[in-house]
């Protein structure tokens, strides 16, 4: 045996209990700090609740009514669904500029397949979802196999899909009345459940269900762990035995599918199918904004999908609150700019004191 043994042997009597220290953070504050430290997704929730309270105090019962509060949910349902999709991509350290355009294109597919080709509306919805998934697959393939930066892939795809959308639809809007008469199923997610003043369209319920399901998948399945690992450090993940290609493909395809769902929600909310819906142009930035306000890092691997949902709601609360307060449009934009920065500053501050 080698000469190193003599002193190394002395370690054989080492203590064998796991290190522990007395807990010095005591009481409620300590408890809260610890909870936030362990669940950083709660931080945007705090900002959200604070924002609701402040607007409630300023605007009174007009804002603090079931009607207005559920109105916020209705107004964020599309951005909320897109933000859920965007969050998945951003967790893999990507970014998707095409989500909004895909959603709008899918509304056109659903509408035109029903009206131009006379397909049964349920089949048209299925085609729309399939189209979304297919576009997502192309994005995923370019990112994962050709190894292009997601920003460029989805920037190109954004332009391609938007232009295809105008070309294919002939810039024609399909009117709400016509859909209601001939293909009501397209508007299915617009069906509203009412409880007193509170109004819940099925689209809102779909959004909430989607967020919960994705949160479960990310937290409690192997797939979810792989998504985080790929976003954190793709090389390490590959070395550790994660199939990075398969994971990326599944994420991009799922995102395409969710964009298809967003399309269906859009038809429910607006009644009509319009190729020039602004979601195609600004839906991407809105979704990214929600995600980042929700505390997901643009560098991937960190954050939770609940955060993205709260992020979308925070923007929705600000927008409705300022509108109800009657701020004029440019002032509203200016203040929303300020509030976005403020919301994230508060978030940052809470994280710091609970670190």
């Amino acid at each position, binding site marked *: 045996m*080698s000469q190193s043994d003599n002193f190394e042997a002395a370690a054989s009597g080492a203590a064998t209990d*796991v290190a522990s220290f007395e807990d010095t953070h005591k009481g409620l504050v300590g408890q809260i700090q610890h909870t936030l430290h362990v669940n950083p997704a709660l931080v945007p929730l705090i900002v959200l609740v604070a924002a609701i309270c402040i607007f409630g105090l300023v605007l009174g019962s007009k804002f603090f009514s079931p009607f207005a509060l559920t109105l916020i949910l209705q107004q964020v349902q599309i951005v909320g669904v897109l933000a859920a999709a965007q969050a998945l991509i951003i967790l893999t350290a990507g970014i998707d500029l095409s989500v909004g355009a895909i959603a709008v294109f899918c509304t056109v597919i659903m509408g035109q397949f029903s009206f131009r080709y006379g397909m049964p509306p349920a089949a048209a919805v299925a085609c729309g979802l399939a189209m979304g998934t297919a576009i997502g697959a192309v994005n995923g393939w370019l990112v994962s196999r050709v190894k292009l930066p997601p920003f460029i892939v989805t920037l190109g795809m954004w332009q391609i899909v938007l232009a295809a959308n105008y070309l294919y639809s002939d810039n024609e809007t399909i009117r709400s009345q016509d859909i209601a008469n001939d293909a009501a199923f397209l508007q299915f997610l617009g069906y509203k459940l009412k409880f007193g003043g509170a109004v819940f369209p099925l689209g809102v319920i779909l959004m909430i269900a989607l967020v919960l399901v994705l949160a479960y998948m990310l937290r409690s*399945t192997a797939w979810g*762990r792989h998504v985080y690992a790929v976003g954190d450090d793709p090389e390490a993940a590959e*070395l550790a035995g994660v199939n990075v290609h398969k994971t990326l493909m599944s994420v991009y395809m799922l995102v395409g599918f969710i964009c298809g769902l967003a399309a269906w929600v859009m038809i429910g909310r607006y009644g009509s199918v319009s190729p020039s819906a602004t979601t195609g142009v600004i839906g991407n930035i809105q979704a990214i904004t929600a995600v980042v306000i929700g505390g997901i890092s643009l560098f991937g*691997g960190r954050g939770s999908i609940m955060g993205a949902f709260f992020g979308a709601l925070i923007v929705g609360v600000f927008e409705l609150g300022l509108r109800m307060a009657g701020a004029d449009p440019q002032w509203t934009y200016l203040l929303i700019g300020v509030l976005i920065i403020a919301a994230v500053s508060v978030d940052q501050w809470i994280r710091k004191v609970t670190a």
Partner: protein
Amino acid sequence: MTQPILKARGLTKRYGKVTALDRCDFDLMPGEILAVIGDNGAGKSTLIKALSGAVVPDEGSVELDGKKVDFHSPIDAREAGIETVYQTLAMSPALSIADNMFMGREIIQSGVMGKLFRRLDKAKMQEIAREKLNELGLMTIQNINQAVETLSGGQRQGVAVARAAAFGSKVIILDEPTAALGVKESRRVLELIQDVKSRGIPIILISHNMPHVFEVADRIHVHRLGRRLCVIDPKEHSMSDAVAFMTGAQEPPEHPQAA
């Protein structure tokens, strides 16, 4: 004469103007502990990456059990039974210790939640993770759900070694597994290596720690300037010889094949 279980011939890998592997040969015999030693930058890590699919060599061939293999990713190698601890550890910094240990081979709950919803059995994975860490003597890890990036250098390395050891397979490759480890933790790793060997699994051990190498290795592959300089038997050569060969202070023995 027994066949090598893992054999490579003429491996070459260049990065631009830098040559990392220069027509390198390699042999691992069944059931043995083969140490690989060499200067910093000699190409040891690149060699084992070429063997484990993490790097695709520019030239040369690899045979496993006498059959030519063509790994294009570490997953291929792993499926063929080669388990590796890389020098860079290959961990996801933001994920927890348990997540990292079971990356790519997660345990799913039994029952409906597992079958239908593919729910992970986190409690079980955490329990096993804690157990493996205790086996390595890493008692200073206070919180098993800590993100790996918050671990100390040595704790992190311990987790990587525990991961490889936990999943026994055909060949285990360890690239400097004890570099950041303390005295006690290093000893435990050496014991673990002996343990794995006694289960009949051959091991490739890269290390700069000569006493450890000479303690456990059956044969020593001396790597220099991107290729195998010679293979020596630790019972026939001293540590001084080994160091002299690998640093170029002395010419290697005539018959490079020792086993």
